[in-house]
């Protein structure tokens, strides 16, 4: 499942990841403002990965995450694409452990995350 519009993103995120809704990370910042919920989800995901270091490549939640993000990015909606880049990858890109997510993302999306991790974005020109 993946949203078509930005206002649907939080609802679909929570439905796709019931583990997140049950965690202390959900609503830690806000449960209504999309970018803040996705920031909290980033912290949930990093915590999850650190607790499951040995099984990340085959983990069900990680696979669902990659599928969800690929669909968001490829939805054709610029706001959703920006949510992936600025609302998720910008935060995840601070942590080297996020590199473990790249193999399960599509080539294009994984490449974007890699750029955040490597800090290669500030010289970008507008297309």
């Amino acid at each position, binding site marked *: 499942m993946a949203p078509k519009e930005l206002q649907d993103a939080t609802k679909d995120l929570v439905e796709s990841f019931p583990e997140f809704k049950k965690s202390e990370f959900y609503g830690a*910042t*806000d449960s209504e403002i999309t970018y803040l919920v996705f*920031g909290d989800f980033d*912290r949930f995901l*990093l*915590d999850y990965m650190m607790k499951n270091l040995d099984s990340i490549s085959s983990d069900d939640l990680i696979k669902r995450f990659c599928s969800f993000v690929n669909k968001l990015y490829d939805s054709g909606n610029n706001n959703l694409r920006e*949510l992936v*880049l600025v609302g998720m990858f910008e935060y995840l890109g601070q942590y080297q452990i996020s590199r473990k997510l790249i193999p399960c993302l599509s080539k294009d999306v994984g490449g974007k995350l890699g750029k955040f991790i490597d800090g290669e974005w500030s010289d*970008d020109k*507008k297309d």
Partner: protein
Amino acid sequence: MFLAIGNKDQVKQITGNDQQIVLSDPQQLNSYSYSENNPIIKSDPSGNISLVPPQVQVLQKALTGMQQWFSTFSNRPAISNGTNQTKEALQINQKENDQMMSLAMGFIAPDEGMASSITPEAVEKIIQGTGAEVRNNLMKYAQNEKLGNIIKNLFQDTDRLSGGTAGAIEHTANTGEMVGDSNHIIKGRESLNGLNKVLNNPAISQNDYHVANGLVNQIINALKKVK
């Protein structure tokens, strides 16, 4: 002596001081003592009142802080071996320890809690910096968890531009160049909504107010430059 007299007017007549002063510092009754009989710690250049030099005040503050630190440390649960602790939890422990040591060393006044106070001018200066530097400095003062998470979202370790999300919005508005392949406008607006919610909390601390308000002004100024 004054307890036997029992009359505040008589106390003043005999001692030359109000009863309240005499009760709070009876050593002042002894006109022949120097610095309350503590000439090593105190001085009395005027001969009327003993003073504690600034250096001694710092040591006294440090001692009070050390006492608080030992008290808190001894009441903390044992730290696990680390295998189950997340990086964030470790960072929280580190921050707590840093604050405790600052408290112990007298850099933070004990009566001001874990964080000293910050002015709007200081916030404005801090947020002109870059990424992790801004985040770490603001986090020293932000007590509200929601505000702390918004700060974490706005300022990243990998930032190269100053000003975090606001800096990215401003950069794109001024140059047309995208940052992170995005213009950051929606993130700025949504963060603004979150900050306003923090500001609307009637129980907000003064530090949180100054930090949140500084960030709101920074983002609003950046968004104003977007055509």
